[in-house]
């Protein structure tokens, strides 16, 4: 489990009608082709998310058409829309309720950084302040193709996750948290304003 199969050997065997795979490949292949998203929309971007799931773009091609209304059954949270300070605690709570392994796509400018409403006093400046985000898709709203692209990126990420060894995936690491503290309403803002375990913005050096 875990160790890579020699590609030359594999193709040689395949030519002879033998298909070899590893536990890790099989497991990741299954996982990446059945990502169930949480059915959960916040704002305008959610409509594009629905459009992605609907007839023309048909996310069922990726095995992800099963939008689950309950976080307990979901693998992926698509944060589609503006996260307000009133909504942020609920989003973190939903994330905490999802079973591991879980992934997050931040869809649209608002979910990434507050987007066009960044100046608003009530708008959270990016959901990555409280929960870890795997794929960011810019756009206002991102086109359904962009969401599909994010999906494929996520599939690639899942495909490369290791099941054992020092680089094994986070969800298999007992030490790694799978729940994050839910922010509370403070006097002026959410408390804490960001979770330092998750939110590590690049330091800008002023010269």
């Amino acid at each position: 489990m875990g160790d890579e199969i020699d590609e030359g050997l594999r193709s040689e065997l395949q030519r002879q009608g033998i298909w070899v795979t590893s536990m890790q490949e099989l497991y990741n292949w299954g996982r990446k082709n059945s990502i169930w998203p949480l059915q959960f929309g916040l704002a305008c971007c959610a409509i594009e998310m629905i459009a992605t799931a609907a007839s023309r773009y048909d996310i069922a091609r990726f095995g992800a058409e099963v939008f689950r209304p309950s976080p307990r059954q979901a693998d992926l949270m698509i944060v589609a829309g503006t996260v307000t300070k009133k909504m942020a605690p609920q989003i973190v709570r939903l994330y905490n309720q999802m079973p591991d392994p879980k992934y997050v796509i931040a869809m649209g400018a608002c979910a990434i950084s507050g987007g066009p409403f960044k100046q608003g006093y009530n708008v959270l400046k990016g959901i990555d302040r409280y929960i870890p985000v795997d794929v960011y898709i810019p756009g206002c709203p991102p086109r359904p193709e962009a969401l599909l692209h994010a999906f494929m990126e996520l599939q690639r990420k899942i495909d490369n996750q290791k099941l054992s060894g020092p680089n094994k995936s986070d969800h298999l690491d007992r030490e790694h948290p799978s729940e994050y503290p839910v922010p509370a309403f403070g006097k002026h803002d959410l408390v804490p304003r960001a979770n330092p375990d998750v939110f590590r913005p690049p330091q800008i050096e002023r010269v």
Partner: protein
Amino acid sequence: MSATSSQELEQAPPRMSSRLEGELMEVSLGPQHPSTHGVFRMNVALEGEIVRKLKPVFGYLHRNHEQIGESAGYLQAMPYTDRLDYFCSMTNNWAYALSVEKLAGIEVPERAEYLRIILAELTRLQNHTSLLGFLLSDMGAWGTPLMYAFREREKILDLFESLSGARMMCDYMRFGGCRVDANDDWIAGAKKIVDLFPKFLDEFEDLILQNEIVIARTQHVGKLSPELAISAGITGPMLRASGVNYDIRKIDKYGFYPRFKFRVPLGDHGDTYDRLMMRALEMRESLSILQQAFAQIQPGPVMNPKVKIRAFKPPVGEAYGRIEAPKGELGFYLISDGSANPYRYRVRPPSFINLTILEDMCLGHTVADVMVILGSIDIVMGEVDR
């Protein structure tokens, strides 16, 4: 129904708390709920399955729209209006453009008026089709109707995209006209889609309107009396489903609507089924308006050249411009102090005001009906919370 439920209501505890009181059980629906159309939450007090009290909780999508409108310039506020009711960016643009035009006394060229009507009616088509799809999926027909609805919606979005560059957030209209002109190919393409639309509508109506389950779930559910509707300020298809003849296209005669012949469908019962039918009938009227517009539209400029939309400073004054948006009366109230941004910028959102009646319509019904009633109001949280 309303008389008994108001008597029963008096027996219900006067205040809602988080504890169980008497026989009532409190359920919090939302903000994450598959049928609340976004981040809307209701606290419902149930007796068995019957709703005895309902308290909506707003504000999960409050994005400071009005504040931003006051601090941004007149032109900068235009793309924000797209994000109010994100299904109908074109009509939002139009309502805002209309108020600024009223404020500054701007003339709009003829072709631009026609383009606005075409786009507004296309918006109405896609809004109503998707609404019907969502409503049906709230009733449990998960998938099929919504897929059909979105198939048609995508065609209209293609038109929007080829004209304005964006599928949803079109930002197409400007005060004094429209941003770009539509070429003949675009008009021909739009006409083709409109020509084919009745076929889809027939099919869709066959699919849903005669359906036994739809009838059982919607008829006599969520009745709204015309008196209550008027006193609560309800507008749009919801008001007309209660039988009140009030269509701003007919009353205000804004744009070139007086040049068009169309009927205003009215309901008799004010129940959910009538509201559903109202959308289907309105789409037929929109199609007839569109056909007339394609026949009448003439080449010409689409933008009034005298308007300086950048660094735009209207004279001191105030104006209220309103249109018949797909969801009801959408108005923008602007007060100008002569500077580059409005002193007051207020949105009169149809879905917020239509939503205020939710409790009256839901009392006495089962909790499953609440979802259907809410779906038939046609809300978009971006507009409710702004």
